[in-house]
């Protein structure tokens, strides 16, 4: 199948997923309380899952300890200290670059 059609099918599927809750769950009162409680946690759950997956795994295999973990720890420390997205990213990126440069 042609790549255009693959992208198109993925795009349609993804849009239907994106619209699903917004269309089906308009009335909050009809969502059971435990589900509402769980939905409030979707941000930390998704961010946490993506961070852990990309940091500790590489295509399903364990990622060897190194620059990724150290720079991520610095970014986390900076985020806690300054409570700032920008500072967290800057610190993490600089430490990562420095580590990569020293190893290479």
């Amino acid at each position, binding site marked *: *199948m042609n*790549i255009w059609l*693959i*992208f*198109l*099918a*993925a*795009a349609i*599927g*993804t849009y239907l*997923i*994106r*619209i*699903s*809750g*917004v269309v*089906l*769950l*308009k009335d909050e009162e009809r969502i059971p309380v435990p589900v509402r*409680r*769980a*939905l*409030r*946690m*979707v*941000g*930390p*759950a*998704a*961010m*946490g*899952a*993506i*961070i*852990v*997956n*990309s*940091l500790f*795994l590489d295509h*399903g*295999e*364990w990622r060897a300890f190194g620059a*990724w973990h150290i720079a*991520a720890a610095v*970014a*986390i420390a900076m*985020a*806690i200290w*300054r*409570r*700032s*997205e*920008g500072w*967290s*990213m800057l610190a*993490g990126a600089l430490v*990562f*670059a420095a580590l*990569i440069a020293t190893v*290479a």
Partner: protein
Amino acid sequence: MTRRSFLRVAPRQWSDAWDGTKAIAPLMVGCAIFGMAFGALIRDAGINPWAGLFGTTTVVAGASQIAIVEAVRANAPAIVAILTAILINARFALYSAALAPMWAEFPRRWRFGLAYFMTDQSAVIAMREAEGQEVVRRRWFAAGASVSFVVVWVLGTILGLILGPIIPEHWQVGFIVPLMFIAVLVPGLRNLAQLVTIAGAAAVVLLGHGWPFGLNVFFGIIAGMAAGATFDAWQEKRRAVVGGLS
């Protein structure tokens, strides 16, 4: 008449949108670099650049787009490429469900439009700020955050398509992914229930490390939400008991 009132309220709405753009701005550099990496990957895989641009503007979800290109490059059947992408994007259903009550009062075309521009970053920022925003500000803020972020994503992709793989492989730009999400997540953490959520998600992601199609991430998110909600309910019950005793 309508026009005049439109002009009268417009500056306020533009400023609400601009606030959304500013809220997501620290992540834009990361988004642009990730977009460039996708554009370069398209070139590297020998895929028609216009098809790559089409993919980036219609799918609007980086990890799944990369998965499609990798599947195509590995000569996997088309259905595998499509299903992998859709499973990777299944988490958007959870954002959509969480955003639904916050967006319930938006006009229908707004809900359908904003859903198209939904990304992890803009969804999380919109959710974080929705509380306390009155409904018109809430939708303009969400639009300002999500549309600008997608524009940066598309521009990054175009740059990558034009320039090709100029970023050396040993720079490991993939680090942008955890870095960006750390920056979104950590400064906003406020309570223990959120930490329990992250721990639950992390546990399942790692336990399921061999699962195909990014399923460990999807089930990790579900597990994290369940863990956090359970802890939250337990804490609330405990507080009620303690409150009743005093």
